[in-house]
């Protein structure tokens, strides 16, 4: 009975209205991902090339545990750069139109 009481609805111009309301398709939706991943790759390359790896202090667990920010500052910079790159990669992969 439920199926019988589900009458067909005539189009009456509905399809035409939908078609005129359609936005121009974004043909290059892949471009956004490519740009973000490209930026992340360039950032990674620059970070590897320009970060002062030689002057980074050895990891000091006691400084880490005692939250000695001055001692940890160089490594915090590395962590921030890494986080920014990771963020760009995740944004590129998870981006929804």
């Amino acid at each position: 009975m439920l199926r019988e009481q589900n009458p067909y609805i005539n189009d009456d111009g509905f399809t035409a209205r939908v078609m005129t309301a359609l936005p121009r398709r974004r043909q290059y939706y892949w471009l956004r991902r490519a740009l973000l991943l490209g930026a992340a790759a360039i950032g990674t390359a620059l970070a590897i090339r320009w970060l002062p790896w030689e002057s980074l202090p050895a990891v000091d667990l006691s400084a880490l545990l005692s939250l000695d920010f001055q001692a940890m500052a160089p490594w915090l910079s590395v962590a921030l750069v890494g986080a920014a790159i990771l963020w760009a990669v995740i944004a590129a992969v998870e981006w929804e139109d």
Partner: protein
Amino acid sequence: MTDTDLIVRVLTSEDQNAFAELVRRYQSPVRGFLARMTRGDTHLADDLAQETFVKAWQKLHTFRGSARFSTWLFGIAVNEFRTVVRQRKELAMEEIEDVVPEENHCAAEPPGQLRLDLTEALERLHSGERAAIVLCCQNGLTHEEAAQALDCPLGTVKTNVARGKEKLKRWLLGYQDYEPA
């Protein structure tokens, strides 16, 4: 042409005629579903249906093909309805608990009257039950497909269908002895 053929044409060739064919195929079930969900507000239902197809056009590249196209489309329609429910609280109205069942009518009631009372009865259901009943019983979706479209557990859909049917039977009890002339 199958839905898959049309979708491939839209995605590879930007074939608007192919998308128009998809709209023509599914405009009636989508508009009908939204008309039920909006409790008969056909203008709002058509606006939501139009937005559903526009979103489908924009997101067609995300359709994976693991489910039927109709299931995916109903999922978008459900989301559009839920968006407007957040703005218009009267659409989220819970089932009317104190409805007085229709008086028993004589067997000579015409089918048109039966359709009207079924419409009224469906409008009185809780929105979750109404959605489950309309998708499964009127549009032929399986419970699993309805759960996917409604983004809720399978058990919830089955419960809503069973409860909804029970309530409809109770409310329409006066028509069960109807015999056409």
